[in-house]
């Protein structure tokens, strides 16, 4: 893994380019608009009157007829028991598909260029969400041990889940309280009679052509005017439960890292150790998806400048790198704690493995007086070292929040 030289000016230029999402901007605008002082009571009454009018329409006319107000169409669409939505690019490639039924959700997003799944979410109950991210290798990566990585795990509901609105044109539109109706009329389409709305959505950031069923008000199609993306919605009576199955095998040419299983295995290995010799206990050997080997141990903390890196017999290694928390410079680290289950700080570092690694390695750990050799060590495969933050003592269990030194 190449070290990253930091050019201050270049880094500043990158920081200047950071921008908020359009959604964030719209939320801010909305928050301010609900707090704007009103000049007179007349607009307030009009708003109240309008709200009562919409409520009465919903109560008295649950099945709106031709030409329903946009607000009713949005409400009808948002409250359906089951829906199947597909979003396609202007050239017809499927970008995203979402199934929803009650509290269950199944979402799959595709890269339009490569056609592969880049994100997948399944929610079988209201608390757990499994996800799958695919990281393609960059063309510059030549490490023979690097793999295209895909990760899966479960969101415990306390962390912020992946925001499906980044992909979901329908959800974006339905969540937008500031939609402006630019046009509305009845139209005849190849799919049948529709109520057509031309909308300006602040959350989407552009104009949308929306087609809804005249009898029920439910949206059937949304066309994003600037880029031609089309979202279509169907309303099945029921959905096959297998659609929401979280055990999905995907990306056969990628190694799928189960984050939860990685963490559990690392916790067990760290606690038990991989062997002790000469005062040193080898705690973990893990190859990450970039092809770097992380070796962690207790009993002999490496120097902060990594002047004496670990060695592996018969394998070519790159320059050592790592984190101050794992060296004698741990005080420089923002977080550095004894690893839970062990009670002492871990020491260690990483080195790129530049030749194809066998399944077991002979690893030599540096000590003040020399090296200690551990033979035939089977290493764990992980996605990123940061996946193991909690068992290594960098974050609290289940919160992801650091504990102060």
């Amino acid at each position: 893994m190449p070290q990253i030289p930091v050019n201050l000016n270049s880094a500043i230029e990158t920081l200047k380019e950071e921008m908020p999402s359009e959604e964030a901007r719209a939320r801010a605008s909305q928050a301010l608009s609900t707090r704007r002082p009103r000049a007179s009571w007349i607009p307030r009454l009009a708003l109240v009157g309008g709200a009562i009018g919409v409520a009465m329409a919903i109560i008295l006319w649950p099945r709106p007829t031709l030409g329903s107000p946009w607000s009713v169409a949005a409400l009808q669409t948002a409250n359906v028991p089951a829906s199947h939505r597909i979003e396609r690019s202007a050239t017809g490639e499927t970008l995203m598909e979402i199934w929803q039924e009650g509290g269950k959700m199944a979402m799959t997003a595709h890269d339009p260029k490569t056609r592969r799944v880049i994100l997948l979410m399944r929610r079988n109950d209201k608390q757990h969400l499994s996800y799958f991210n695919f990281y393609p290798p960059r063309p510059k990566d030549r490490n023979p041990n690097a793999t295209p990585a895909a990760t899966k795990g479960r969101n415990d509901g306390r962390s912020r889940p992946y925001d499906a609105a980044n992909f979901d044109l329908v959800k974006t539109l339905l969540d937008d309280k500031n939609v402006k109706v630019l046009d509305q009329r009845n139209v005849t389409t190849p799919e049948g009679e529709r109520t057509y709305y031309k909308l300006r959505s602040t959350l989407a950031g552009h104009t949308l052509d929306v087609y809804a069923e005249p009898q029920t008000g439910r949206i059937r199609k949304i066309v994003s005017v600037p880029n031609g993306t089309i979202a279509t919605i169907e309303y099945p009576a029921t959905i096959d439960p297998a659609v929401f199955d979280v055990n999905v095998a995907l990306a056969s040419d990628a190694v799928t890292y189960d984050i939860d299983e990685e963490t559990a295995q690392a916790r067990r290995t760290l606690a038990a150790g991989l062997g002790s010799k000469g005062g040193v206990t080898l705690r973990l050997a893990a190859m990450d998806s970039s092809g770097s080997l992380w070796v962690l141990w207790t009993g002999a903390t490496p120097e902060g400048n990594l002047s004496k890196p670990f060695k592996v017999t018969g394998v070519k290694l790159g320059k050592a790198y790592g984190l101050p928390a794992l060296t004698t410079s741990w005080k420089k680290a923002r977080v550095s704690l004894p690893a839970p289950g062990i009670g002492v700080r871990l020491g260690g570092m990483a080195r790129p493995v530049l030749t194809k690694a066998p399944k077991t390695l002979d690893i030599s750990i540096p000590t003040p007086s020399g090296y200690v050799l551990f033979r035939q060590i089977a290493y764990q495969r992980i996605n990123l070292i940061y996946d193991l933050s909690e068992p290594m003592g960098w974050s609290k269990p289940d919160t992801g929040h650091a504990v102060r030194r």
Partner: protein
Amino acid sequence: MDDVELAKRLAAGDHGAVDLLVDAHHASIFRFLRQLTRHVDDAEDLAQQTLMRALKGADRFDGRAGLRPWLLGIAFREFTKWRRKKLWLPLTIDRPNPGDDYERLLEADALLDALSRLPEGVRAAFLMHYVEGLSLREVGESLAIPEGTVKSRLHTARTQLSSMLEEEVPYAANPCKP
């Protein structure tokens, strides 16, 4: 429309002025707060709070410095209040996602890592001047400090960052990428 006029219209409850305020300044405020907090969600919340405070206090804007320095000053005060409430520095700062600009983002992230070790006032001065492009005078107005103190803080920032980023060479700031 100049800043004083915009502030007057905000104070008068002009709806269009609010949209102008958000369009012109939300991005800068968010960016500044994101780089201070290292977390998108918190930055979004604080950016909203900043704009609301600005709206409330628009009648007190006197135009001595521009609207942007004034807003960034409010943002910094919101950040310091937020920071005091936090017992621990969260580890789950947002890290760059793998992508085409991954190395550039890692480099910027390394800078933010180093900045996070500097005192808040030094950090704010650095971000306001070098990233947000405020002049020394505007930074001073924003943080209510003399211009000389701004210069001193910037000098401190550059010296310490150069040293920290050099020391980071044996270590990757974020070693993990696909």
